[in-house]
């Protein structure tokens, strides 16, 4: 009897085991608590490229990639609006770039657009603060024809006067629309607070500067800017280096040697005042937009890799200290982050994001807690350091994920004056960063006594709670970043609009 019972139990047990998850009898059950170990680390391959000085002074970079019948072509001009634009003509560089699509001596704007559309592509033009680009991605078959149109746009623009007026009107509407966007306002006011109105980093196009632009300004800018001496031509994709060099030399024959490498001499950044909250009123706003920071180092700082790791830990990833605390633990925001705006000059360090209005004060306290933490109250741990380095090093292939991003990654080395083997040495440079380095650069670059805390939000509900935090005194600014008229009581509903 007993034995029989035991047998039944055994049969039942086997049946149960088999029914659980359908694993067949005899197979080892899966232990799901065990994190699967990674396989052998794949070889990180960095693309190779050729670099040639063309007779006209431009640099030609060619990187072959034959995975797909695609070609990315870009001309990058070193130096941008800050180097080539008069201070009272902010917006001129961007306007000139836009005007290149408006017609050439042999094609109208409509004809350019139609020709490019039939080639299935489009030529993009833009000039930023420190560099400008003209370029496209095309199929291999359409590359020469698209290149010929780009050449025409760059060298033979006709600058129709009516097009300038249309683009001027569009730009002015864009400036008006920007005033509706708390995120844009916050960024603009932040730049003005940090750099003042005399430094190019604090300047931007205004209604007045856009209205002042003339066709002569555009023509003069074009002549000074679109010159080969400061140009880098980058071709990535399904091309042969020798034949693409011939095609480019032939196509750009009329582009003769001229221009100079720009200098990047910026005026001194004004001394930063003691830490303050700069509050910009956006009545009824559902969220407060934060930008907290101060001027930082240029891209060529020897502290670059330490700062890269530091920022990654502080606010450069989803599980960064800032986002973990303010989003994941407290739910004050959909996401916050931090960054260094590296350039040729002292680009800003900033931390920020959009925070629910009712938690503006609480979020500020948490931002400050994390900033104080990273400069010494809560030093980076071994675990944080290791994870950050792993992430940065193994994330390198992302720079080469498409023909256009590969082109950008290579060109950036030339623009920033970095060595050609930068990506080969990248892992070693990141690996070399120590916890001591992180503490040193945090203390050096995150000067919390001189932080600008710019908040764009509903003043009537956030001012008093912000004041109560005692983090810093509050100064009220208008949408342009100028001191707003002081209102009685400071935090009442009759705050100036």
């Amino acid at each position: 009897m007993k034995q029989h019972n035991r047998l039944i139990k055994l049969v039942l047990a086997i049946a149960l085991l088999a029914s659980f998850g359908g694993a067949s009898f005899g197979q080892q059950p899966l232990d799901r608590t065990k994190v699967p170990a990674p396989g052998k680390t794949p070889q990180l391959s960095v693309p190779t490229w050729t670099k040639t000085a063309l007779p006209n002074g431009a640099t030609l970079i060619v990187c072959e990639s034959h995975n797909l019948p695609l070609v990315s072509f870009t001309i990058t001009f070193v130096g941008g609006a800050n180097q080539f634009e008069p201070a009272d003509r902010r917006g001129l560089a961007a306007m000139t770039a836009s005007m290149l699509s408006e017609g050439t001596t042999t094609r109208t704007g409509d004809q350019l657009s139609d020709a490019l559309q039939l080639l299935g592509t489009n030529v993009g033009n833009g000039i930023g603060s420190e560099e400008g680009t003209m370029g496209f991605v095309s199929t291999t078959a359409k590359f020469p024809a698209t290149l010929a149109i780009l050449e025409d746009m760059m060298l033979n623009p006709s600058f129709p006067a009516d097009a300038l007026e249309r683009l001027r009107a569009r730009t002015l509407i864009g400036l008006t629309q920007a005033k509706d966007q708390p995120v844009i306002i916050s960024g603009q006011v932040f730049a003005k607070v940090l750099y003042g109105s005399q430094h190019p980093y604090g300047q931007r196009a205004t209604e007045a500067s856009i209205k002042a632009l003339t066709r002569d300004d555009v023509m003069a800018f074009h002549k000074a800017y679109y010159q080969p001496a400061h140009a880098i031509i980058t071709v990535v994709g399904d091309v042969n280096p020798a034949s693409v060099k011939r095609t480019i030399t032939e196509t750009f024959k009329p582009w003769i040697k001229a221009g100079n490498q720009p200098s990047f001499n910026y005026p001194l950044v004004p001394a930063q005042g003691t830490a303050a909250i700069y509050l910009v009123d956006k009545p009824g706003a559902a969220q407060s937009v934060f930008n907290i920071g101060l001027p930082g180092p240029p891209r060529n700082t020897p502290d670059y890799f330490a700062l890269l790791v530091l920022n990654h830990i502080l606010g450069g990833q989803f599980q960064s200290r800032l986002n973990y605390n303010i989003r994941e633990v407290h739910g004050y925001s959909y996401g916050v982050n931090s960054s260094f705006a590296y350039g040729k000059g002292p680009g800003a360090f900033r931390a920020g994001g959009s925070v629910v209005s009712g938690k503006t004060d609480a979020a500020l306290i948490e931002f400050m807690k994390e900033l104080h933490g990273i400069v010494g109250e809560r030093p980076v741990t071994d675990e944080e350091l290791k994870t950050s380095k792993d992430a940065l090093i193994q994330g390198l292939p992302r720079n080469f994920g498409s023909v256009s991003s590969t082109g950008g990654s290579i060109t950036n080395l030339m623009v920033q004056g970095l060595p050609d083997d930068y990506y080969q040495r990248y892992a070693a440079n990141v690996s070399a960063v120590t916890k001591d380095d992180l503490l040193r650069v945090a203390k050096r670059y995150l000067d919390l006594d001189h932080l600008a805390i710019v908040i764009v939000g509903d003043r009537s509900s956030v001012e008093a709670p912000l004041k109560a935090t005692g983090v810093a005194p509050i100064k009220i600014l208008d949408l342009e970043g100028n001191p707003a008229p002081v209102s009685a009581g400071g935090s009442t509903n009759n705050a100036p609009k």
Partner: protein
Amino acid sequence: MPSMNLSITRIGWLKRTAIGVAALLALGLAQQFLASGNGSVATAQRKTTSSADAIKIPFESYKLANGLNVILSIDRATPTVAVNLWYHVGSKNEVPGRTGFAHLFEHVMFTGSGHVPYGLHDKLTEGIGGNNNGSTTNDRTNYYEIVPSNYLESALWLESDRMGFLLDKLDLAKLNAQRDIVKNERRQSYDNQPYGRVSEIFSAAIYPKSHPYSWPVIGSMEDLSRASEDDVKDFFRLYYSPNNATLAVVGDIDIAQTKAWIAKYFNDLPQGQPVTRPSMAPVKLESAKRLVYEDRVQIPRLYIQWPTVGDKHEDIYPLSLMGSILTGSRTARLTKALVYDSQAATQVGAFQRGNEDVGEFQIVVIPRPGHSLTELEGAVDAILQKFMNEGPTAEEMQKATSGRELSFLRGLESNLGKANQLLDGAVFHGDPGFFRTDYLKTLSVTAADVKRVANNYLPRARVVLSVVPKGKKDQASKAAESQTVVEQRAEVRGGKS
């Protein structure tokens, strides 16, 4: 894809495209934007001769005994792999009173599961140089990991654990934290965004009350507050079973090894109940609607929307081309007439937006100062009438399709993008290779097809929405006939549950 979906994502700030698409969508330019790819260098074929030859993504697919669909595709361009899991459930599966739940649930899926503590998911993705995210549309919810290829096994382990064991570690505190984050996502992407509420106003206006497409994916603040722990459990049991999911693994993989890992981690997850889906016929409006919404903006906008058909309907191909012909370039009908010739507008956009079951065709116009929305509506209608009479020219047809090959090829540069194409075909059309059918159908559209859909859909009853500055309802198109959209979902200032 000929049409596009609005999706919202777990992580906003890491995903620039999420914000970019939303902003461009408001301008009706999203299709052009979506056409450009980014991501990682890709696949197979060395040289291509004709357009159709290039339209290839090699893949194989199979089904596990528990109903999980699997798609595998090799691409060794970079040593990375994308794991992408689609559940065939979206906001249309919600019930009135619980809107926004599918997306809130998506957030809960990142809070840890039976054998995966909170934070490990991010550590095994962004912590090793990869990334992860999820997104929710009306029709489906997806989750993906992009990792170095030696971490594929752990990525599959992560996905299988939350498919099988999410509820083991669920608690109310986790749900509440995600609820706060989602509310901030709503504030950031809709409430604090100029023109940010347009899409939900249209959903409510086009679809009958309680129709599954009548509410926004993000949901309402009240409904988000209501979601309970039991709701999470019920939703998970109903929709998060292997038989309602499709898994794609694309990148640097070994097929046999990948199949073995998928079997190891997914085979023992039990099959769930069959999922019943509401079948929905496209809607027609009984009569035209004319709405005005006051927003915190300075420049008014005119939106016109017609109910059309969903992505399974043949008419989406000519409808999508009609969008390109009307506003796809500077010589497109509406753009040329309104932005370049009369210059009454600064920007116009037109596009077909499709979901699994339903779709809409939308036109948006941003006026120049001095031109009323009433004037612009009349101008748009005159151009549409002429277009309905004439149909498109041969050149217009050619221009509208000439960019398709390049956009498809650029899409192949990203493992994630390829995975999404294969999944879209598998989930909505029952064929991972549907991308090719889709492409060929787009190219085979005739001018007569476009003329037919123009005459079929554009004369139907439509919704005209004027978004105007606060207190400026008189700026609406035909203001006297317009009905005011009230702020139904405004939250109490400073409130946070």
